[in-house]
């Protein structure tokens, strides 16, 4: 199957080209971090819900094996959570969480003498789409790129908007991050098989893996791994531009379809999944392995040794930092995710959840730390906004407390990619003004 990748352009409106800083970790193979003595598994690893999504189904002193179910959904957006280690439940209490500060969780003492579980390949090609979907749900797969939306729900689009195309988001447009890139290099066949599985679940004939042209080795690896059973999967090579990995931008870049304002991708017949999620689907369907590990990039000039790590869920930042040799004295910011959209934290007791794609340790010289000044109306934020919004007017109204007036400038369409604030010469926190304006204008 020597079908070459197809060259595409990119999304049309706005976008930026920040220095990608990927060189810090792009050539480092995925390394499995040894299991620590104790893990703190939060029972909240997904998109935020109004009420707790999951409750514990184990009690103190229960013996656990790796991959055993420990949390069941009690909210329709909840997903199963499995033990990432073999050992004994030390306590069922609250643990740190990167967004919610404290959430219910299970703390497990690791038993190093326990045998390694074996996840044997099975004949997944004879499974029906519906069977695969229930396996995916049981395995607790969520969007691994950071959003954490339950995958089984995303793969069950509403009947009134039929889906005809699957897009795999392999853009990894955030600077520093390389975990998807490494997965493509090291496990291209699994990614392609995972894509075939999702196609079967959705009942679509066509899938594109959208990948930026700064990853030629990954394109080559995927081309070489293609076999007869990957018919219908194309490689869409896109001109590098941030935020290519945003759903709406990726759909436009590859299919030319424009998702209407306020609608989901299914409105134009598309479903987007990222690389990590697709690999998780593969592991669930082909190996029967639930999600309890996560591949993430640990990078930045503030960590002694950058790495692409495969870690158990529930491993804390402190344990990762210790494993990688500590931080540097000029460390200034710790960011979960990429530097454009990632969440800034300062608590090293935070455990890894399913949505982590990277942990960045940024030094003073890397991180934007300055105070901001008045808007000079240069219009750079407008010209780089991929949604065609007007961040400078939003920021002016938000600063004046006139939040209702921000609606006219499309503040609700903002997905907080950060292009505006990255460019702003006055270093105004435009994303913050956008977020604030959205909060002050709740959708009823």
């Amino acid at each position, binding site marked *: 199957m020597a079908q070459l990748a197809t060259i595409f352009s990119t999304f049309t*409106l706005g976008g930026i080209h920040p220095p990608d800083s990927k060189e810090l970790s792009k050539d480092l193979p995925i390394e499995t971090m040894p299991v620590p003595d104790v893990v703190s598994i939060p029972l909240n690893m997904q998109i935020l819900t109004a009420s707790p999504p999951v409750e514990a189904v184990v009690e103190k002193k229960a013996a656990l094996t790796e991959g055993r179910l420990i949390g069941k959904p009690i909210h329709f957006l909840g997903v199963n959570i499995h033990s990432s280690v073999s050992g004994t439940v030390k306590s069922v209490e609250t643990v740190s969480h990167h967004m919610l500060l404290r959430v219910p969780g299970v703390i497990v003492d690791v038993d190093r003498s326990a045998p390694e579980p074996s996840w044997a390949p099975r004949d997944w090609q004879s499974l029906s789409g519906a069977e695969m979907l229930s396996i995916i749900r049981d395995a607790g797969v969520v969007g691994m790129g950071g959003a954490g939306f339950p995958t089984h729900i995303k793969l069950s689009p509403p009947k009134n908007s039929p889906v005809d195309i699957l897009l795999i988001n392999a853009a990894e447009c955030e600077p520093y991050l390389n975990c998807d890139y490494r997965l493509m290099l090291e496990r291209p066949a699994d990614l392609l098989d995972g894509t075939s599985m999702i196609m079967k679940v959705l009942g679509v004939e066509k899938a594109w893996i959208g990948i930026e042209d700064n990853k030629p080795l990954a394109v080559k690896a995927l081309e070489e791994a293609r076999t007869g059973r990957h018919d219908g999967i194309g490689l869409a090579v896109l001109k590098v531009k941030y935020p290519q990995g945003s759903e*709406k931008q990726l759909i*436009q870049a590859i299919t030319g379809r*424009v*998702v*209407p*304002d*306020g*609608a989901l991708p299914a409105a134009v017949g598309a479903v987007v999944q990222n690389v990590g999620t697709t690999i998780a689907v593969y592991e669930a369907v082909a190996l029967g392995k639930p999600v309890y590990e996560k591949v993430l990039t640990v990078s930045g000039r*503030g960590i002694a040794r950058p790495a692409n790590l495969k870690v158990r869920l529930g491993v804390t930042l402190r344990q990762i*930092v*210790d494993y990688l040799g*500590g*931080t*540097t*004295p000029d*460390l*200034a*910011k*710790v*960011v979960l995710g990429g*530097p*454009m*959209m*990632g*969440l*800034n934290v*300062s608590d*090293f007791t935070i455990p890894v959840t399913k949505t982590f794609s990277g942990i*960045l340790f940024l030094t003073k010289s*890397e*991180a*934007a*730390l300055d105070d901001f*000044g*008045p*808007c*000079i*109306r*240069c*219009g750079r934020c*407008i010209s780089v906004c991929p*949604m*065609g*919004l*007007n961040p*400078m*007017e939003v920021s002016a109204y938000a600063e004046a407390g006139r939040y209702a007036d921000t609606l006219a400038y*499309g503040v609700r*369409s903002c997905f*907080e990619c*950060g292009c505006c*604030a*990255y*460019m702003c*010469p*006055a270093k105004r*926190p435009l*994303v913050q003004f956008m*977020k604030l304006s959205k909060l002050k204008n709740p959708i009823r």
Partner: protein
Amino acid sequence: MAESNTRSPGGEQKTAPPVLTVGISPHIHSGRTTAGIMWTVVLSLAPALAANIFFFGTRAAALLLVSVLSCVCIEAVCQKLFRRPIRVRDGSAVITGILLAMITPPSVPLYIMPLAALMAIFVVKELVGGLGFNVFNPALVGRAFLMACFPVAMTTAYVDPLSWLEAGSGAADAVSAATPLTLLKHGGMDAVLQHYGSGLRIYSSLALGLHPGSMGETPALLIALGGIFLLFRGIITWHAPAAMLVTVAVLTWIFGGESGLGSGDPLFHLLNGGLILGAFYMATDYVTSPSTPKGKLAFGLGVGLLTALIRLKGGYPEGVAYAILLMNALTPCFERWFAPKRFAEPLKAKA
């Protein structure tokens, strides 16, 4: 809870833990700052200013110095008075000072410059909220104010370039000379030709700055080069300057001639007066001009239209300043009319 695990190599001894910052995303920045932009603009004007100081001598240097110092000091005092952070180091008042000096005849009495600076910085800019909030271009209002208060100085204080060489140190006593546009206004193209000799000599004098005028009117070529430098550095876009220059060229070609439609001399008009300076440095002012490409095109078109109208039909020989000021007033409307194009239309509710 700002803590971190810092280990000095080869030991358990811990140094002071780094202080962690928390803030909103994005966590990286392009590195291009307000001050960086402003000082690049200053840099781009340096060749033209150097040429002017050569042409008009210490008089021009003194004018520049007084103008810049007045603007910077008044801005600092205003910011102190209004309890705002002192931001004069961002270079924006320096640019106003430079531009103000460039649009004032070189041998005006120096004491009028602080007055113009007071108008530009205090009234036009700081009173309405400071950088980013002024409706009108401060330097241009400063000039309009001087035109109203000191009309004689503002229209006659032009000197021939290099006259300071001939007059020795008596540059201040230099005989006033008429700018090419004044010659054109009062004596038509014949008067200009008579003064300069031939058409070619007119163009070369204009391009190189060998004619009487304000500092911003003289070395058209060097000012244009500065503008092109700003274009390549991505500090300004082509929209407003191109629209403005093309409009003036077309209109002066059609209506500017003395022997019917289409007999005008667009090149003469392009190289003359403050058109180049206005196009690259004032019609592109972030604060007082529209921020979208279409808005900028419309703005440039409007400025070009008004400039040609004032030059050809108005009472003043030169109209760039008033044309830009009038369009400044329309900028808020342009921002509304030419709003950025959205990624997608809102989803229509199905009936």
